[in-house]
């Protein structure tokens, strides 16, 4: 693997490119050209949201490799393109990481490299992923997910306040909040009887400060937890992200990366977003030194990744990545409906089934209600997502396609105006951590519906 110091050197000395030129010439034009050259334009198949064509996935990977080679990754701060040779990129993609352990005995979880239709179980890495959460509800909301043993590791929300003081990005309060978030999350898993459960975080770190304050410090997140470095935009990085990488490398911990490749944005179409997403994963392995790379096509129209277009794009992208890389691969789940709605569970199902059969190792979520509304996260949707993803292991892509075809029409028309649902206090008892009767009834009804559709939830 290319040393990180070399990446930093190239961030300072690579070809200069103005931001506008990057967006319109490099991304927009090159993506269009690459799709045309590889005969991939027009391959989006809305009738079959889960891809079953291995040849298509292979061609996308080939095209994405060429794109990654040609353009590299853009450093916003220096306005330079961080580029690599063919040998350097090949070396990176051939390097195998079979498994990564997170958390500690006896609560550890294993993130394993998977292939399409693999029987190896995906890791259920769930929680109120990035949702704004009140500090006084932080522990019960996180404990409500950690209490379910089907969930292997916990993804926290985002803190809005620290001892009542509003947290602001880029200030010393963010630095303090990084550790505070870790302390509260650890308390939640301790109360759930799983003190060594694997975590990710700090989530409250839009800049590098929250990360420095919360990761690798005494009482904070540990090197056995996962720290995610999220890209700002397609194939772009900046010094804030690279600071995080440097810090994680100093700690000797695995790096998890992520990005959103916008359907409707500069890559334009589902095919464009697929191509860019695969190229981003290849480049994240070298630029961000990611052990666990990942990311998603994301739908600009709705701000989610559960639309038909993004599910198709993610299935092709996941298959291309998992067929050609041997690493745990991450997808994320950004839904629009809130808790206590059947739509939220349908979104979890469509996304969960499709990414697991496509070879992803874990589905990072559940970011419910568009990630907008405070405290709109509960344990039940995370338990549900964990059950669905594990039940999908070993399923044929053709069967998954039929299931997703049935599920999508149940919520697609509501993506523009999704149901907000109910917040934690409205559908969970904060003391007993049991869902309300209404929420439990919805869960049981949708669960039965899915079993009837062929999702083998009864086995779990």
């Amino acid at each position, binding site marked *: 693997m290319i040393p990180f110091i070399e990446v930093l050197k190239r961030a300072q000395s690579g070809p200069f490119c103005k931001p506008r030129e990057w*967006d*319109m010439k490099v991304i*927009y034009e090159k993506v269009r050209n690459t799709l045309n050259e590889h005969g991939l334009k027009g391959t989006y198949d809305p009738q079959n949201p889960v891809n079953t064509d291995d040849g298509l996935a292979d061609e996308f990977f080939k095209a994405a490799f060429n794109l990654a080679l040609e353009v590299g990754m853009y450093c*916003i701060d220096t306005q330079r393109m961080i580029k690599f040779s063919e040998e350097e990129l090949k070396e990176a993609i051939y390097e195998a990481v079979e498994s990564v352990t997170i958390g500690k005995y006896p609560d550890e979880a294993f993130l394993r490299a998977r292939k399409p239709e693999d029987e190896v179980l995906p890791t259920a890495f769930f929680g109120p992923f990035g949702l*704004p959460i009140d500090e006084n509800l932080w522990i019960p909301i996180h404990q409500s997910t950690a209490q379910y043993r089907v969930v292997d590791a916990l993804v926290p929300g*985002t*803190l*809005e306040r620290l001892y009542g003081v*509003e*947290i*602001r*990005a*880029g*200030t010393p309060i*963010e630095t303090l*909040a990084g550790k505070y978030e870790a302390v509260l999350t650890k308390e939640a898993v301790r109360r759930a009887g799983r003190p060594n459960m694997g975590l990710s975080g700090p989530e*409250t770190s*839009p*800049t590098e400060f929250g990360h420095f304050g919360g990761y690798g410090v005494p009482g904070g997140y540990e090197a056995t937890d996962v720290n995610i470095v999220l890209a*700002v*935009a397609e194939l772009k990085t*900046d010094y*804030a992200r690279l600071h995080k990488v440097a810090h994680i490398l100093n700690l000797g911990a695995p790096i998890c990366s992520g990005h959103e490749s*916008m359907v*409707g*944005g*500069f890559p*334009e*179409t589902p095919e464009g977003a697929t191509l860019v997403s695969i190229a981003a994963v290849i480049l994240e392995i070298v630029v961000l030194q990611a052990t666990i790379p990942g990311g998603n096509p994301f739908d*600009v*129209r709705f*701000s989610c990744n559960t639309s038909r277009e993004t599910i198709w794009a993610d299935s092709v992208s996941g298959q291309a990545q998992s067929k050609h890389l041997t690493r745990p691969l991450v997808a994320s789940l950004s839904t629009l409906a809130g808790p206590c709605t059947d739509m939220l569970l349908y979104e979890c199902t469509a996304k969960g089934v499709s990414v697991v059969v496509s070879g992803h190792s874990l589905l990072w979520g559940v970011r419910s209600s*568009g*990630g*907008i*509304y*405070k405290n709109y996260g509960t344990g039940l949707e995370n338990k549900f997502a964990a059950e669905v993803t594990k039940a999908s292991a070993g399923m044929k892509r053709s069967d998954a396609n039929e299931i997703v075809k049935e599920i999508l029409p149940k919520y697609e028309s509501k993506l523009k105006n999704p149901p907000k649902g109910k917040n934690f206090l409205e559908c969970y008892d904060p003391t007993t951590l049991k869902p309300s009767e209404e929420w439990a009834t919805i869960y049981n009804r949708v669960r039965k519906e899915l079993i009837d559709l062929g999702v083998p939830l009864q086995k779990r």
Partner: protein
Amino acid sequence: MKKKSEILKELEESVIQGDEEAARKAAAEAIGANLDPVVAIEDGLTKGMSLVGEKFRKYEIFVPHVILSADAMKSALSLLEPRIKGEGKAKITLGKVVIGTVYGDMHDIGKNIVATMLNAARFNVYDVGVEAPARRFIEKAEEIGADIIAVSSLMAVTKPYQRDIIDLLNDMGLRDRYKVIVGGGAVTPEWAEDIGADGYGKDAVEAVRMAKKLVEGKCL
């Protein structure tokens, strides 16, 4: 010689296609044919841009196409605008907008889409970029005599900076001078109301609609 209706159609079409060269050519033809520049802009360029906005809303075209269309429009405007005299000028520009993403937030795609759409809707847009501190928005607004300050934030821990801009405007005694619109992934209508913003845009189309509403009846 081409009919005026043909030139108007060419102006409209050049914007729809996002063809900068064709837009400049059609604008030059409009000037050569003594076409009223206000008519050329309103019945040619703006008509085309409205259709582009509509197509974007329906997801028939994507962000890069909107940018190319806005570029084509800008290019034709650069030839037509200097020829507008007197009251016609007031009809062409709806107002001046300062736009940016708040401090601590690097996200620019949403902000760029809104800026492009505002531009296309005949607002003069001044972009202060990403990670912009409150004072940068206000300094730019003061410098160019803005009508609207449009503020984007994607994250829960960056949206308080939207309030900071309004607070700073209040503290500087400038609040009445500007309309403030907020938007972005973390922002809700309730938040906009809570911090005392004048408007909220759920997406680019809504933001433009809100901006137009806020400058309605304003004598420019």
